[in-house]
């Protein structure tokens, strides 16, 4: 009764591997379907401003700007040495 297909012994490992493969295939198909659905589902924006707001939220600021700015700002506002440092020659 355990032989489902003549000539093919269905060991527990074989069954598990088949099941795993089936699950993977199913989840792959599911992902593909979800991708297609998300492609076909349009986003709607009532006004151009809403569209721009969405775009702005998904537009990151290049981190290089902060680095450059830090270097530019640093030398401008360097503090004077305190009197005791000047006195001690530091």
């Amino acid at each position, binding site marked *: 009764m355990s032989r489902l297909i003549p000539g093919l012994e269905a060991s527990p490992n074989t069954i598990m591997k088949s099941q795993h493969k089936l699950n993977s295939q199913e989840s792959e198909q599911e992902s593909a379907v979800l991708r297609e659905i998300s*492609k076909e589902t349009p986003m709607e924006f009532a006004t151009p401003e809403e*569209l*721009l707001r969405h775009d702005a939220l998904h*537009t990151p600021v290049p981190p290089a700007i902060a680095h450059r700015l*830090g270097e530019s700002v640093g030398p*401008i506002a360097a503090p004077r040495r305190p009197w005791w440092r000047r006195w001690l020659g530091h």
Partner: protein
Amino acid sequence: MSEPLAEREQSTEPGMTLASTEFGDIYQEHSRAIYYLALRFLGDPDKAEDATHDVFLKAFRKRDQFRGDSSWRTWLYRIAINHCRNLQQTWHERHMLSNADDAVWENTAARGDSPLRVLETKELGQRIQKSLDGLPAEYRLLLLLVADEHLSYEQVATLTDQTADAVRGKLHRARKAFAALFEKTSGDVPAHTRSGSVS
């Protein structure tokens, strides 16, 4: 945050990073808005990066001139608008009136009140940039400023040197023009990713 920065921040010590300063807080809060304006107004990421850096550097140097009668956001926008306009100024823009462009949109199907439908987000930025590039600079700036929820129509009016009513009127035309251009850009997208018709 209306207190002049110079009174709160005595100095930045050598080696101190931007993030550890109060000006760094201002950068953190407003950099996205300024960068986005520069990016979409100038249409070039490299120019936008330089412009954003220059705007905040200018703001830092002139921070003692900030009297707190406007918000930091509007003050930074003022600097950014002037900076970007100077970068874009050509003989044509200095001498040709923008009103002549209005006639182009009058014959366009009235889609100013229709929702904008987007199917693929992958090329959305390109479509938006292309649409903005097709607008007169005045309309482009208006849409970008109004898109910032932190700005009221009155603040937008002040930044663009006109009345709030004028802003509302031009905004209607700017929306219509943008929608027409945006719809055209959908033709540039491959067929399998094209969105449905704009209602």
